[in-house]
């Protein structure tokens, strides 16, 4: 969790003019579409486990392997594997409203054969994923405490 929050601060330092004044709600909203989270909450019924928390846990457990798979595929010039990993992560990211990761994955899927574009997009994905992971960790903490 501390590592996630440090990553969130790194992200803020790049994107806000006053990084010392962290606004966690703004960070969450920036990385995760609140309308998507609201639509998932609507599916929740009293007495059930929090669906959003369950999906966050599954995403945080599964998504890193797809990011790593993309890096490995790019290193091995395997456009097919890169496209497949990007496609999968796009789907799960979109379903949780993690819009920047989903969009970068969409671009990786389209540009999987262009190595210069792939390198740049993978760097972007690193930033987007770090921000998303921090925002998801913060959202999770907000819900379970």
């Amino acid at each position, binding site marked *: 969790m501390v590592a996630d929050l440090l990553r969130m601060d790194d992200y803020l330092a790049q994107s806000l003019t006053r990084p010392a004044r962290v606004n966690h709600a703004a960070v969450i909203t920036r990385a995760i579409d609140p309308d998507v989270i609201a639509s*998932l909450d609507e*599916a929740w019924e009293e007495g059930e486990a929090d669906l959003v928390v369950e999906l966050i846990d599954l995403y945080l457990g599964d998504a890193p392997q797809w990011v790593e798979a993309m890096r490995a595929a790019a290193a091995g010039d395997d456009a097919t594997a890169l496209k497949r990993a990007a496609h999968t992560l796009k789907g799960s990211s979109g379903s949780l409203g993690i819009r920047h990761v989903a969009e970068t994955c969409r671009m990786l899927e389209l540009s999987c054969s262009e190595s210069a574009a792939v390198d740049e997009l993978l760097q972007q994905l690193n930033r987007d994923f770090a921000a998303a992971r921090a925002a998801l960790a913060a959202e999770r903490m907000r819900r379970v405490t």
Partner: protein
Amino acid sequence: MSMTIKHTSNRILIADDDPVIRHLVTSIVTKLRYAPVTVNDGRAAFSLLKADADFKAAILDMSMPFLEGLDLIRYMRSEKRLIRIPIVLVTAEQSIKLMSDSFVAGATAFLPKPFTPDQLQNLLRMLLAAKLPSTRAA
């Protein structure tokens, strides 16, 4: 001589290799009082369908390891015992051609990702309106 086949199951097959989507779909199916039966890839779905036709509906991801959703649809539409099962094809691919191909293959509905729980609930209610499980209140 006519034969009546009675289908009493309220099971819905969910085939998706993505644990996030699989869990989301499973939650919605459960909320609608159906019994989810989940598999993680196309080959597992195929193996299950070879032995078991007792499903109210199937929700298949397009892009899965070993066997894609479209291939599963073609198989299901070639088997008399599976042909009555409504099939929802779920995909993150925004392609008119894929949508067209899925209907040609025999999909009943096409659901693009990302989707909201409401969208899937409404789609299932529409597909299964005449086949509500007996445990559901009238």
